[in-house]
């Protein structure tokens, strides 16, 4: 058996023992891109973040945590973290998966929105989440993950090449058929849960809506009048939503292009195109030339077909 390299392009090769083969995870210390905002640094602290490549597609956070158990305690795992995609808004409102992943490790289920809204002054309504038991999420093969250790000393330990392949740990999330069954059942929660969820979401939604309305420049019930004294009307709802007053609705075309189409006038051609003799002659000539051109192209096509022995019927 050839000796496999321990390092590859700056990555440490971590072999994983599979039933009849070895899987390879490549690990490297996470280096944040230089020109990035402070935000992504917050998410992935330098010095204790391990960058993993070729994570098994069905890996769960728990499994990765177990894999690096002997290197130190893992704070959290981010799968497929792509800073370009990360929303630029509030952190907690960001990538649901990230939050979910973070929450999965928490034993006590904390309503998500609560945390976010702690800062805002008027007490917002609580949102009841739909139940989400821990199920595996499949990712594309060969994907990567960021592993954040609690302690920066663990990083070095993790990066030293292991002496022997580690077995792939297994967490209690179901796999295969039982996963699909569990998923099926999970997707069909009891009706009252759904009702609670939908109602609470709408309460939240209304609350946020009214809050944003207060902050918005346009207020309901007030006509928005620009400098020239025009009232702005937009489409919305089933019958059109007027931000201002009870005026008619802007046409769809206007909404899309911002141009006023004007009355549809029938554009009658003023010039006759066969008035002078030369026009007629040109036209005729053009017809004949077109005819010839068509004929020639037809002919070429047939020639080509002829070459392909098409015209031998049998």
């Amino acid at each position, binding site marked *: 058996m050839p000796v*496999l390299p321990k390092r590859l392009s700056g990555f440490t090769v971590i072999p994983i023992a599979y039933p009849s083969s070895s*899987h390879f995870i490549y690990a490297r210390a996470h280096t944040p891109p230089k020109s990035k905002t402070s935000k992504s640094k917050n998410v992935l602290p330098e010095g204790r973040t391990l960058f993993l490549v070729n994570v098994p597609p069905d890996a769960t956070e728990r499994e990765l945590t177990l894999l690096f158990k002997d290197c130190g305690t893992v704070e959290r795992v981010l799968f497929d973290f792509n800073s*370009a995609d990360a929303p630029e808004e509030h952190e907690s409102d960001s990538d649901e998966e990230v939050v979910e992943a973070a929450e999965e490790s928490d034993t006590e289920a904390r309503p998500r929105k609560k945390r976010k809204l702690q800062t805002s002054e008027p007490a917002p309504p609580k949102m009841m989440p739909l139940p989400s038991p821990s199920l595996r999420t499949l990712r594309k*093969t060969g994907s990567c993950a960021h592993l954040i250790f609690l302690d920066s000393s663990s990083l070095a330990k993790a990066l030293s090449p292991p002496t022997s392949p580690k077995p792939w740990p297994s967490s209690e999330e179901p796999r295969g058929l*039982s996963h699909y069954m569990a998923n099926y059942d999970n997707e069909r929660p009891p009706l009252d849960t759904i009702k609670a969820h*939908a109602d609470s979401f709408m309460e939240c*939604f209304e609350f946020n809506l009214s809050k944003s309305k207060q902050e918005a420049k346009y207020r309901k019930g007030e006509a928005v009048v620009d400098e020239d004294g025009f009232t*702005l009307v937009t489409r919305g709802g089933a019958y059109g939503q007027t931000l201002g007053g009870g005026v008619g609705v802007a046409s769809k075309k206007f909404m899309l292009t911002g141009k006023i189409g004007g009355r549809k006038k029938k554009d009658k051609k003023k010039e006759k195109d066969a008035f002078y003799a030369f026009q007629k002659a040109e036209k005729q000539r053009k017809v004949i030339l077109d005819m010839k051109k068509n004929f020639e192209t037809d002919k070429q096509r047939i020639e080509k077909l002829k070459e392909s022995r098409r015209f031998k*019927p049998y």
Partner: protein
Amino acid sequence: MNQVDSENTNRQGREEPLTGHELRDIKDAADLYQSGSFKLQIDALLPNVRPKESGRQQLDHFLFALRAHCISIPSIAPLSPLAAIKVLAKQGVAVPSVFPLPSPDVKWKVAFEPPREFCVVGSWGNGIAVKKQSGSRFSVDLSMEMPEALFQEKDYLDGRFFHKKSYYLAVLAQSISTAFDVDTFYSSALGDPRLTTLVLRSRNGSASYDFSKSHTEVHVIPVLSSSSPLSSSRLFPSHSNVRVPSSSSPPNFPTPIYNNTILLSTCAKEALMSTHELKNALPAFHDAYTLLRVWANQRGYGDGELCARGFERKGSFWAGLLRYLSLGDELVGTKSGSAKLRKPLGKGLSSYQLFKAALDFLAKHKFGETPVFTKTTNGHRCAPEEYITHHPAIFVDATSTINFLSDVPLTSLDLLSHDAKETLEQLSNPGASSDTFADCFLKSRFKISSRFDAVIRVNLSQASRNQSTSTVIEHGSSDAALLASISSLLRRGLGNRTQAIAILQPVTPYRPISSAESPSTSIIHIGLIYDPAHAFRLVDHGPSAEDQDSNVAKEFRYLWGSRAELRRFKDGRITESVVWEVTTSDERAHIPVSIVRHLLQLHFGLSAKYVRTLQTPFDNILQLPDDVHRLHRATGGCKAALTAFDGVVRSLKALDEQLPLALLNVSPISEYLRYTSTFAPLPIPASVSAELPESLRFLPTIPIILEFEKSSKWPDDLKAIQKIKLAFFETIAQSLMSSNPGLKASIATGGSSNPFQGYAALEIFTAEGWSFSAFIWHDREATLLDRIIDPGKMFVSPSDQKYNAREQREAKVAQELYTRRFIYAPRHHRAIVNLCHKYSAYSGTVRLVKRWLAAHWLLHTHVSEEAIEIICALPFVGGKQTSTESAAAVPHSKERGFSLVLEFLTDWDWKEPLCLTLYEDDPPATAPEMWTSNGPDAIAVHRLRAFAREASKVLRNAETELDIKSLFLHSTDDYDIVIQLNPTVLPRYHQNINAESSVWTRDAHSGITESTHRPGFDPLPIFLADLQSTYADTLKFFADPFGGDRIGAIWLPSLGAPRPFRALAGFSSKPLAKEDKAKDKDLVMLNRQAVLDEIGRLGTGLVQKIIVHEPM
């Protein structure tokens, strides 16, 4: 014809206007032909089907030598016929035997004198020969006039003429075969010994007379001179010229075919002259004749494997047809209907117009009813009534002596009419997607499975040949008599159920000159083309009870045998009738074939063993095994599903009071509700489900769409809309359950991370065991999604929200689902339902094609059901909106539809758009890509075509082997990996093409069976989708969605070689040991075994084993 030479005349300046000559040519091409390119194609075709110049000299050389030899053959003194046969037999030459054989004590004698006159006749003589089907050579008909002295006036009697002719031919054969180095054969057209000719073929490498280069064979035809002693008035159709010693037949029966056959020997030269005249008179005759022959040859009127009976060596008929069209009718008697006489065609017609006129005549003329008498110069030779009473089909030539159609069964003529009709339809409205010229002249129509609605293979070897001697004499051989009798009985029995019946048999093979009799036919194929309006009628009415003793009633009873019975019908009539009992729609589709079976059994003693079709095997493909039905204890079907759907709609509408918005519309979008699901849907009530083993438990969930009245109360935010839908569903679910006991409703949240997408569905599980999932259509979603995807589109944004790239991506996915599910799916559904109602065979075709595609692991994952439904519409609609079910080209049975779709798929150029006008309210171009955007990709289409090609081949074999199961068996050899799944946990396993009942009868295995009822649950497609999305760039997966228990996969070739390491490579890799230290690139390889281990892990509980087909 007008050869367009614009190439040389006008090369230098393209901008130059055309010369008058060119202009006229181009205009003519467009006006006188279908189109300019059609004319060019005709011009390209013609030289390919005409004899080449090469080798003519050698041929002429041979013909001269042959003439010189034949003149010098010594005369043979008169001998008694039996003695003459013995003499020749000693020399190894048989005399073609003609029925009735001469008795030993006849007084007349046979003799030989060298032929008088030699003449190359027929199409070769006129230079209008047309190439025959592949392999056959041009035939050069060489007539040799037998001296009059050999014949007596009474030779028309008892086949004496034919015996003399046979002897003459045998002497010629003997002499020529010894003198020349050529192969000699006898050929009896239609197996009729009276039409025997001597065939001379040049032997390959023969030193003296090698004319093989001319690709011809010489047919020696002994003919009678016009001054022969046989009086032609004795040969009029009504005359009886054969006396049969037996008592079974009436002593004097007219022998019209016999008479006609004698007359055929007299007019070869005359025909040559008149065709020559015609060729001079009609400039386009030659081309039109060639086109007509090519058209006919492609359809089996000529020679080949499966010929329509009666058209062998009937070249003169086609020339006669054109002559008739150009000369017009001869007046029949004093009939006042002379106004209806056909007007002769103009002489200046183009070849295409003449060809089309011939087709038009063939399509419209009813040969069984109206006789055709070509205009003659001297009036009728015999009373036309004689023909009319004694021949079933009449087409009398311009000399008024010969009926071309005397031995052509009416069934073949019906088929000819039908084919002409079909071609005319194609020519008069060329479909956008099909190539009319190719359909007309280039494609051979010998694939009987796609040509006929039903194909019946009959083995005649055991048929009882109870035809009377007189019929055998009249038809020339017992085979011919049998086939004529089958043809007429079937035609009467099927009546207007069919548009055409084809009796197909291989062309009569040549036989060595040592054999006296033509080999007999044992296998024939009967092809039926249904008339959809009548084909599946349940009752055949006969004459009423009052005229029990009339001839009509007797004939009716004779035709149907014991099946004919007196019945009283609802309207009070009491008639003789035949009732066909059917219980299923499949059986109803079999009625015409059952009629054929019954008639063949009754009249010819052919049991089911000898009369076989592919219908039942095809039906079985679409049915579940019997014990599955027993275990399910339910009767399903599309009708039942539709009733259940109506029930759900009714109970939903009844909730009106309890819902905040009124329900406007419920639209079905499922194949189960439009008759196109491969298997009839089966309901499974919860109580039954618990008892069923897992592999029988599949219950399809039928999607439907709910549309509520418009309201301004909807929030203007996508996420909120989805939640409102949830709330809606909850209300509906609660009230449905309270108003319908036994009904269960739940909400499937769909569990998607895409916040814009309406994954949630209301699942309704009725008491009878049907499962529906309802979606709410809210049209505001489209606008909102649009705004996210393309903010620039909105002039005024109502909110100042900005969306990032990920959200836009998600919105795009959501929008695609939205348009597909809410806009296209209902429209598609309506269009398909219409098709199903309009074309009775459509749904069966779709079901078969789906089954076939599924069996080859392509359906769903690679080709969507909707795309298949559209493709299957092609043979029915053919690119034309206006086609009706009665159009000639429309298939009327699912087997034929299936075969036509296969044919289409075989040479489907998927890069060319396929345009069908299915959706009435919409330009058609926008729809199809909706259903093909997710595949098939190039690999899948390539495979698809390969399978189709293979299947067409198998299907053609199936016509003889009757094994169609192999069509649906999939070879796994070309997959790199085959993942074997555990069939006991697959709820659809019972639909597997090779389902083994042991899987669900093994009750001991119930350890895995769960008691929870999960409607619509099927792990295979979810697992497959998971695998495909996980390993999208590594492997391509295939599986049979209908109960497949294996998944096949191929490694994508792009990952075969080592490549440099990259962090975001997107595949599972293993590092390669560095061999060369100098190389600084770190190479990695695809880690195949690890991937397989992972697949095994992902499919825990499903995967039994993974078989690898290649060395790792």
